[in-house]
């Protein structure tokens, strides 16, 4: 199920890449951002879901995240009384969980 989802997410991402230009467009009026970059919420939850599967933990919750380089995030997870670290990309590809 997760593999199917990842393929779909990758396809969505590929479509987005094909339509993007090399320079980022200027934000629209009314655009907002947070002053500190965190991982998008859906990617944080993707890490949590995958950690539940791989680690067999329940009640996995993202507790912190940061952008380590453009398009790549590290997400810290509270997992089954312990903690785990997940690396995920903008394309929804989970590179590691430890």
């Amino acid at each position: 199920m997760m593999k199917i989802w990842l393929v779909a997410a990758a396809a969505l991402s590929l479509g987005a890449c094909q339509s993007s230009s090399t320079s980022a467009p200027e934000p629209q009026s009314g655009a907002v951002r947070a002053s500190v970059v965190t991982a998008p919420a859906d990617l944080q939850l993707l890490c949590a879901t995958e950690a539940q599967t791989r680690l067999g933990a329940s009640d996995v919750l993202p507790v912190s995240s940061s952008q380590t380089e453009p398009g790549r995030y590290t997400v810290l997870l509270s997992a089954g009384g312990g903690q785990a670290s997940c690396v995920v990309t903008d394309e929804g590809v989970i590179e590691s969980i430890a």
Partner: protein
Amino acid sequence: MRSTIARMAALAGAGVLALGIAHATEVFDPNTRTWVPYDPGQAIRYYKQHGQVPSDFQRQVVTFRTAEKPGTIVIDANKHFLYLVLGDFKAMRYGIGVGRDGFGWAGIVRVGRKTEWPTWTPPAEMVARDPKAAKWANGMPGGVDNPLGARAMYLYEGNQDTIYRIHGTNEPWSIGLDISSGCIRMNNDDVIDLYERVPVGAKVIVLMQGAALYRGV
């Protein structure tokens, strides 16, 4: 469920989290072509000038890649967004106001009950520090001046009321700010929309860095 928040508090207490990081909102100013701080003063000026909050904080369907079931609420407190999972990699996104410094929290809870035009009863500590709240120590009837706004969804952990709610507001300019006492506030039109879409029992996932600030009851 209850242990999830407790574990998070323990993690943060151990210094695992990057506590104290500011996640203030910035808004793009097309005149200066720069990002400017979106503090309460700026938010009030923006609302007076435009009659609405910045477009990114207005209700809209967005791509949301998740395995969570449709009907799940996901709150990204750092970015001041609430997502309602719709399925097919889509979510309805709403702008929100969240807890100010010292009043943020994170965890997995659920909608325990819902109320239209709720009565607002300020907690004792708010009554003690705020004369305006003290006036309503025995409860303020629902209405347009009520801080809870048009609707309230009461968040429970297990069968216990967390004291936190998703609710409307009488300060529509405050969306996008860290301004509440821990509740999630929405504009009244948005909270009515969400209220109609979400049943009692819906799962609510609250993400917020610095979650050690949670003060459970």
